[in-house]
């Protein structure tokens, strides 16, 4: 609207164009990327940088002293880039041919396939550094995520989050609802009606106008509980499958019954709603338990946790809904040292136990669960053994969900569809059908119908 905005945007445009240009050179140069050729640097010496966010970053930093006992000559700097800022920062770095990237990158399952597909060679093959021996060490489905073809290993799994169902036990009690008896989400809706009537509280909250990218988490959870996803294993679009329509219809049913509060406004709004006690249930995955404990420590004993009800009677109640991973940058000059840090953090149960104690981050490393910490009753969750509950979910069969390189686009059309349903009362089947078509035209993928 004036010079300065124009200038800012001009610079932005140049950056965008420059980044794009970098992308081109990066792509054309992948065959000859130096570090891939074999020079992985000194394994026990050097200085490495690690990018992560908030809680996980703090936990990695806390591991450094122990790491330095084993590798005194590797200097580790952990940077908290923030989430979601880290994704843009990694994208720009990769688009610029790896310039400015950290040596170790913490990457979510939603971004990993995109980085691998769009920026070949930007993530080091950990297989060459010795990752293959850990093939069977992690929760089911995760090795397929980090090594889709079974050869190149793009990252090592860190967190494995299962779908969870955190609830206010006191609210359920006040409403006279037995939370353990909720077998399906339809039961949960009936319970929600009673809760609303007796206590005035909502059943759960959704970011209705989709102010954040991950506003369709709950929809995705309902879909994954049925073994469905946005893409099938061939990469075809399954956005308007029967499972997806069923999931969206459940959300519509809840919303129409007035059981869904709006938690738009990002993280702060979510935290405020927990403090205010707006909803009786937080259908969030494993890692969220730690957040609840931190947010409302004075409500210890009032909370409970269980696995979510199934979508159809007798259906699955366990799903690994997301995972995060540590990768090593393909252009890093200290790949061997970086790998040593990744290995130290992710394959030693001692490290993972510390991280779990600190922030409740659930490890993908199965051996970790031998530790008593996962089998202790939790004071906060009314004496329940939270660790065991989620470990049980991890052991249950969970399909490897195909995120593909177009997950971000899928997420966009899904959140738009959900907003149409929640704010405008649109028909789930219709909006999902349109969303699938739109995604197909954007990505050139087929819709599986």
């Amino acid at each position, binding site marked *: *609207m004036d010079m300065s*905005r124009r200038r800012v945007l001009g610079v932005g445009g140049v950056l*965008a164009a420059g980044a794009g240009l970098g992308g081109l050179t990066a792509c054309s140069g992948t065959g000859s990327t130096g570090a891939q050729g074999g020079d992985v640097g000194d394994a026990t010496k050097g200085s490495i940088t690690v990018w992560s966010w908030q809680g996980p970053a703090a936990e990695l930093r806390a591991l450094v002293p122990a790491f330095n006992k084993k590798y005194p000559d590797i200097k580790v700097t952990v940077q908290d880039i923030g989430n979601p800022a880290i994704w843009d920062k990694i994208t720009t770095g990769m*688009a610029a041919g790896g310039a400015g990237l950290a040596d170790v990158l913490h990457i979510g399952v939603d971004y990993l396939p995109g980085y691998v*597909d769009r920026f070949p060679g930007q993530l080091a093959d950990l297989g060459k550094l010795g990752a293959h021996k850990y093939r069977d060490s992690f929760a089911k489905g995760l090795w397929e995520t980090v090594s889709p073809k079974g050869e190149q290993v793009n990252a090592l799994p860190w967190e494995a989050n299962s779908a969870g169902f955190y609830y206010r036990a006191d609210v359920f009690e006040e409403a006279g609802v037995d939370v353990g008896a909720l077998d399906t989400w339809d039961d949960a809706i009936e319970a929600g009606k009673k809760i609303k009537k007796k206590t005035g509280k909502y059943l759960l909250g959704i970011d*209705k106008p989709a102010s954040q990218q991950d506003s369709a988490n709950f929809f995705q959870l309902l879909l994954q509980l049925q073994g469905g996803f946005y893409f099938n294993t061939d990469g075809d679009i399954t956005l308007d499958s029967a499972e997806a329509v069923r999931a969206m219809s459940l959300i519509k049913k809840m919303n129409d019954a007035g059981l869904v509060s709006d938690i*738009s406004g990002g993280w702060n*709004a979510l935290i405020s709603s927990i403090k205010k006690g707006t909803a009786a249930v937080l259908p969030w995955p494993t890692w969220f338990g730690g957040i609840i404990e931190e947010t409302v420590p004075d409500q210890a004993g009032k909370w409970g946790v269980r696995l979510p009800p199934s979508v159809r009677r007798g259906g699955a109640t366990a799903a690994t809904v997301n995972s995060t991973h540590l990768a090593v940058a393909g252009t890093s000059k200290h790949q061997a040292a970086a790998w040593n840090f990744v290995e130290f953090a992710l394959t030693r149960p001692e490290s993972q136990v510390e991280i779990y104690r600190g922030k409740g981050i659930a490890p993908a490393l199965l051996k970790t669960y031998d530790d008593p910490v996962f089998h202790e009753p939790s004071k906060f969750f009314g004496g329940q053994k939270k660790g065991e509950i989620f470990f049980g979910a991890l052991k249950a069969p969970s399909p490897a969900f195909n995120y593909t390189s177009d997950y971000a686009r899928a997420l966009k059309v899904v959140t*738009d569809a959900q907003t149409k349903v929640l*704010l405008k009362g649109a028909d789930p089947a219709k909006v999902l059908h349109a969303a699938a078509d739109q995604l197909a035209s954007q990505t050139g993928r087929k819709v599986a119908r």
Partner: protein
Amino acid sequence: MSVVTSPTRTVRSAGVRDSRPPRLSARRLAPYAFVLPAVLLFAAFKLYPIGWSFVLSLHKTVAGVDTFVGADNYVRLLDDPLFWTALKNTAVILVVQVPIMLALATGLAVAFNSAFLRARSVFRLGFFMPMVTGLVAYGVVFSVLLNEKYGLVNWLLSLVGIGEVPWLTDPLWAKISLGLALTWHYTGYNAVILLARLQTIPKELYDAASVDGAGAWQSFRHVTLPGLRPAILLATVLSTIGTLQIFDEPYILTRGGPDNATLTIGVYLYQNAFTYFDFGYASAIAYVLAVLIGVLGLIQFRVLGDKS
């Protein structure tokens, strides 16, 4: 730069007048040498990316391999409903918010110029201040103020008995909020452009008008406005360019939502490049945007410029 260095040059060449031909060529080259750094920087950071992004816009990247696809990206744009939504949203801002803002800015400029206004510099500063506020900072502040459940604005409204306004969560209100934020940020800046021009209008014209019996409105209508024409043209063209490229505000306030109600071309371009890694398509959007800006700017110069 050449202004600063010219005295030295004059002194030097005055001292050695006989060796003229080689000196002269050095003298001729000197200005080029001085502008060279700027030209190089411009070429490296502006021309090169601009050129490359055109090349990119003709390519599609699949699994890291670039394929030349000709005009495919541009054809795809025409069929992309989201691109049209973004274009429509941007047009709405252009047609609704820009005129309101420029009218406010004109009023402000006249007020700033008024002899009756006390503490004038305080007011000028107050209205110009938003302009120097970081885009992200003010976006974040607005999103906190306008939060439906926990925002200050709705709290204040609740004190006078007005219920929760869905500032950022309803498609229509989100557009209004975006317009409010833009107006807050850019009105003062435009007012200052207009004020600068206002102060060049000769006082005699007003005197003559009042001798002819013109009232306040008539002298505004027949003296002030015609006098402001070039500045209004400038403000309009700059606002048009800025609006077409608008990115920060919708990105921070609403991320283009709800349901794409505030999706602008800038936000859509960004999403394609940095969220979907589709740089070819994003470059095509950028080029279409540049052409649009050029055409609109030209039209505005034709319509508003010729008469002065």
